């Protein structure tokens, strides 16, 4: 089998490669256009995937099957949920429910040096371990009264370290730990003692959510029963909570990403098309000569397509390199932006670049079709 390198360094003459290398500035523009396009597309998709992944991570890690919230409070960040604590008894009486945990957690803010900074506060300690931090980076895992654990992204953005003091709901709290996995792009999770959360996040006798563990295979029926019982609460499957959490981002973010991705694709296609087309026009006489000498049409078409494909491939790899460089810089300087780029996005973008090359070859090829080989007998 021929080596993959044979495409770029063939034994036979690659007129496409020779033509491209003869005008390096044009090649650079062409490669730059595709690289820009690839970078833009991958960064946007990577960012979208990263945020989507983060929005799901916490709910997944909590690991309960059913979330019970105030009716209409379907997500974590956009709405608040308050339920009577007494509903716990009703929930425990439902067949298939194995455990019910009151959950105290809602969007709030810290006072850091007189500045209000948004966070999602969750009550958690060694006696109530269901909804704690996903991973600990440093410090204590369980906060006592007057202590708080903040997410590493939050700490990085706000320059907070273990031992610092921040204002939480009007009271000073000592940062005793830094956790990870609690970044949901617009805000980050922070954890303080369960008892404090019960006193400060809800009015007396209320909780924010109930976390319901069910017997195997009973999640759906438990959810249906809760919703049918009209206990003043709405049950949601964990998957629905994740979906609702993502919905806000999908509604606001996805159309923008879609439009920008299309723009990126169009820019890449246009740059390759213009550079290859202008190169074809400039070489129209030479293509005419090759036609006159007896080259089959396919040779000429494949030369143009290869020019486009080589520019596309070089641009794609340069773009991927740039994406990694930018991701590294973003992680360092804007930690709330998390990129999640897998081989699926890479392959998808590579296919998009391939499609760009096909589109970009169309005009030059139709131009070649119109070249009269008799042009060779006209003086240059």
């Amino acid at each position, binding site marked *: 089998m021929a080596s993959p390198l044979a495409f770029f360094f063939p*034994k*036979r*003459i690659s*007129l496409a490669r*020779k*033509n491209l*290398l*003869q005008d390096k500035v044009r090649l650079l523009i062409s490669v730059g256009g595709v690289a820009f396009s690839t970078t833009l597309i991958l960064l946007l998709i990577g960012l979208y995937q990263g945020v989507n992944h983060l929005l799901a991570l916490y709910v997944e890690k909590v690991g309960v099957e059913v979330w019970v919230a105030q009716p209409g409070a379907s997500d974590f960040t956009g709405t608040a949920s308050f339920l009577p604590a007494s509903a716990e008894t009703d929930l425990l009486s439902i067949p298939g429910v194995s455990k019910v945990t009151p959950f105290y957690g809602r969007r709030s803010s810290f006072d850091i040096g007189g500045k209000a900074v948004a966070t999602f506060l969750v009550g958690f300690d060694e006696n109530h371990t269901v909804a704690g931090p996903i991973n600990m980076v440093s410090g204590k895992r369980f906060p006592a009264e007057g202590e708080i654990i903040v997410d590493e992204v939050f700490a990085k953005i706000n320059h907070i370290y273990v031992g610092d003091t921040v204002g939480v709901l009007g009271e000073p709290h000592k940062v005793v730990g830094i956790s990870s996995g609690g970044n949901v792009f617009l805000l980050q999770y922070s954890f303080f003692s369960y008892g404090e959360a019960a006193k400060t996040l809800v009015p007396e006798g209320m909780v924010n959510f109930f976390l319901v563990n069910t017997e195997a295979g009973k999640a759906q029926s438990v959810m249906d029963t809760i919703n049918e019982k009209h206990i003043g609460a709405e049950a949601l499957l964990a998957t629905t909570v994740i979906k609702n959490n993502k919905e806000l981002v999908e509604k606001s973010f996805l159309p923008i990403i879609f439009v920008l991705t299309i723009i990126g694709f169009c820019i890449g296609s246009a740059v390759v098309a213009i550079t290859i087309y202008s190169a074809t026009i400039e070489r129209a*006489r*030479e293509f005419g*000569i*090759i*036609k*006159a*000498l*007896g*080259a*089959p*049409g396919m*040779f000429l078409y494949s030369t143009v397509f290869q020019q486009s494909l080589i520019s596309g491939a070089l641009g794609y790899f340069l773009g991927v390199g740039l994406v990694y460089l930018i991701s590294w810089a973003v992680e360092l300087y804007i930690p709330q932006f998390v990129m999640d780029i897998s081989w699926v996005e890479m392959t998808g973008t590579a296919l998009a670049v391939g499609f760009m090359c096909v589109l970009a070859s169309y005009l030059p090829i139709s131009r070649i079709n119109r070249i009269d*080989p*008799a042009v*060779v*007998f*006209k*003086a*240059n």
Partner: protein
Amino acid sequence: MNQNTPLIELTLVSKDYGSGKLTVRAVNQVSLKVMPGEMVLLSGPSGSGKTTLLSIVGTLLRPTSGTLFMAGKDMAALSLKELAEMRLRTFGFIFQDSNLISSLTAFENVKLVMELAHANTEVVSRRATELLTRFHLGHRVNNPPSQMSIGERQRVAIARALANNPKLILADEPTGSLDSKTGREVMLELKELTRSEGRGVLVASHDVRLFSTADRILWMEDGRVESKRANELLT
């Protein structure tokens, strides 16, 4: 192929451009033959129809009327693809401006036509080197056309024309951009190719210096062709 079969045989070939009252007849009922080992010079003033006739013989233009046979084969019966194949394997083209591919070296320009004809890779390299050496271009193998003199470029064009061992060479003003010494050298090379290898050569030129090298001279004027002797034209 029989030595008595003409390489080219045109019978009453005409070529019109435009239509209706604006029709211009560039070639008017031309009949001619070129035999193997024969060098025919097609001469005449500018605009007389030489280039159009050469384009028809080279199958780059279809005649409006008349027949064109190449080594006994009717060109009208061939598809565009078959004509291209015919040009690649049977014709060698030499143009006024050498018309080399600017992004390729001398070696690659010669190699390209052989590769297009799907010749074996090793044979291709060996033959390209041999041809360039034969035309004293051994030192220019890796040079692109921009780094060669006009004469060198024209010699590369001749090497390229010979690459696929064609039966017929069509040359359009091959000495047009050369000084007299280089022009004469090029014509002698063509003459030598005709004699030693039994090829047919049809040269379109109004360069009087070439008259003495041709076996036969055809004079073209207003699209018509008549045979002339060199001394007739020189006087």
